[in-house]
């Protein structure tokens, strides 16, 4: 039994050593070369400030080609999409992003549309309610004299009418 352990121990340690070497090689092995699709997946989320409103993946200028090369380089170094986007914002400003970051006045972009839609909905509901409820006020208003002068003229007219009827 003791003999078996003595030759098993070096074998086990050798296999652990081999495993370690293999895993280190896997980690530091040949760098991953990003495909065009991988580069474009990141580039499509970025905009070049030089050629405005054109996503980086379809922009044909030399500047954009250089930026795509930079994305490829960062991806091959193992950077994530978010890390690359942060790097581009630090280098070139918020304008490179497809959507403005939610800070400062940019919050208006995110807050105002839902608020306006909500306000519109409230106005619509109120308007529908007002249209559905039958009101007697307008009839009463029509019947009632609108001003004291009107009331006076009505009385005068009625008085004259009654007087003329009596005279007949």
């Amino acid at each position: 039994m003791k003999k078996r352990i003595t030759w098993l121990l070096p074998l086990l340690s050798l296999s652990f050593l081999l495993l370690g070497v293999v895993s280190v090689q896997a980690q530091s092995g040949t760098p991953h070369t990003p495909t065009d699709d991988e580069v474009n997946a990141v580039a499509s989320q970025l905009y070049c400030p030089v050629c405005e409103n054109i996503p980086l993946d379809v922009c044909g200028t030399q500047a954009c080609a250089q930026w795509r090369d930079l994305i490829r380089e960062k991806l091959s170094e193992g950077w994530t999409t978010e890390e690359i986007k942060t790097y581009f914002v630090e280098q070139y400003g918020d304008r490179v992003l497809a959507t403005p970051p939610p800070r400062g006045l940019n919050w208006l972009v995110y807050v105002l549309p839902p608020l306006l839609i909500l306000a519109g909905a409230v106005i619509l509901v109120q308007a529908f309610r007002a249209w559905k409820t039958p009101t007697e006020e307008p009839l009463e208003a029509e019947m009632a004299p609108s001003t004291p002068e009107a009331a006076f003229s009505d009385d005068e007219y009625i008085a004259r009418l009654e007087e003329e009827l009596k005279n007949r």
Partner: protein
Amino acid sequence: MTSQDAVPPSGESAAKPNAEPQKKSRISVGWGLAFGGLLVLLALIGLMLRRTQEGPIRVGDPVPDFVLTTFDGDEIHLADLQGKVVVLNFWASWCSPCAQEAADLEAAWRYYQPGGEVVFLGVNYVDTEPEAKAYMAQFDITYPNGPDLGTRISQGFRIRGVPETYLVDKEGKLAYAQIGPFRSLQHIKSVIEPLLK
């Protein structure tokens, strides 16, 4: 029929005139708030549009202070350069017209450097560092250059493109703006010389 007929006789109907003004005042407060909010929004949009529509800095205007971190890692504050004429050139490696004036700018820098009265600064606009450094090596550019981090400097000057060159006088005011490339070394000298007198 008399005018008294128009007055509602019942108690329920008599209560309505009190409820109506309350409802109306609530509605008018709502509309007031809505219009107030709309006015504030329009004012904000107006301010933002005004900022974006403003053209380049005008000659005679004080130049906004900035910090340029050079490719070598040095920090240059414009405020520290008061008393000197500053030639601030915006460029990019992908910009062909920039290449037309690059050699003349370097020649001008070498001409004025011994006097110590003129400082040349290059601001690399939306460029990638390897290409920018290759460009500098190609034209043997020796004056301080650095990236326009976050495009803050170019936004401060509200540039429209590259190349653009701004001359800041000894008092820190904009003395000259060159939109597009300089034609020659003589052209560069002709705009710097009046500021040295």
